[in-house]
């Protein structure tokens, strides 16, 4: 469980790489390498590939950068519910929008971009793992914290004073 935030940060780096590639191809006006699978250029030049003039790939860069930051923040205190839920909320919005875009590819454009599918898989995995953490990580009030030696010493002092 301690390593989960790091794994999520790593997944975020993969997604960030994909988004950066798509942004570079978009602004460099270069064809997207699709390895003969799918219709990447068609999907990424469709009306659905931008929101208010901002390429969806650029939104992806922002999303992944925020996810990585949230995962690293969570890794500093993996029991912190607020950090975990913050990450989970981000992953939910990312996966939700990626799900919508996948629907658009399959049902409206009838064309698939493998990079977009890869990104959607990364976001779905991030959401699944963080949801699992949400279920498996005990509620804060149920956790008995590990005591540091200093805290243990203070507790012992307190008990002695109480007994005395």
């Amino acid at each position, binding site marked *: 469980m301690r390593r989960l935030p790091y794994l999520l940060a790593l997944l975020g780096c993969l997604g960030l790489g994909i988004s950066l590639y798509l942004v570079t191809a978009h602004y460099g006006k270069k064809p997207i390498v*699709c390895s003969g699978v799918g219709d*990447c*250029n068609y999907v990424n030049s469709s009306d659905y590939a931008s929101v208010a003039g901002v390429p969806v790939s650029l939104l992806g860069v922002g999303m992944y950068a925020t996810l990585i930051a949230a995962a690293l923040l969570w890794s500093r205190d993996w029991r912190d519910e607020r950090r975990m839920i913050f990450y989970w909320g981000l992953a939910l919005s990312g996966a939700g929008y990626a799900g919508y875009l996948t629907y658009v590819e399959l049902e409206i454009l009838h064309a698939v971009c493998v990079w977009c599918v890869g990104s959607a898989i990364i976001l779905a995995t991030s959401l699944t793992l963080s949801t699992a953490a949400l279920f498996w990580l005990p509620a804060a009030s149920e956790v008995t914290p590990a005591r540091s030696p200093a805290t243990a010493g203070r507790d012992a002092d307190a008990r002695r004073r109480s007994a005395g």
Partner: protein
Amino acid sequence: MAKTKALKRPVQQNAHRGYRRQAPTDRRRLVFIAAAVAVVAVVGLIIAGGALRDSNKVSHEAPAEGFVLGSPDAPVTIMAWEDFQCPICKAANASVLKQVEQDYVTAGKAKILFRQFPFLGQESIWAAEASQCAADQGKFWDYHDALFNAQGAENSGALSKANLKRIAGDTGLDLTAFNTCFDSGAHQASVQAEKQEGAQLGISGTPTIFVNGTLVKDWRDYASLKSMIDAALASATKS
């Protein structure tokens, strides 16, 4: 009093680490808030994208250039901006445009005007130029159908220069004339000009279809397309 303070201290010290500061209901509340914010963000993005698409009006004036299927005197013009690598264009040709051809074009009520918008990469541009070379021999529509039949994944080699020449041979074109036309880039400038014209009109994807200059928003719905054609026909009959 001092004893009570001392007993409370460990709990307070742990509290700053967040171990005991939240009750189980807090988690539920936070999860609910996070989920609500996420849903609002996603819906907002979808709505913003949709609003932009609706406001992205494509202007268009009377047709000028292009390849005509049907009688040039037909009162209704269905103008289709297409890319030979576009899978949706292939689907449109096999479905609604085929239906329009059967219902209106053969009856002389409408004509289909093909316009080039090769935006999906180098093979789209080669295919557009090659189709113009086929048009020089009066076989644009045969070559048009053959190109859509040969369509593969984008820029995967399905419409490479060699394949375009092979398809020309299969379509019964004079290969010597075709190769001379294609290799010399005879239609390079006109294809680029047509693509630029499309871009200036606001076309960003294919197929983009117009009925007598009016953009067809949902061309997949044949009933909707049909009603637009019927309205254009009625209008043309009155005038």
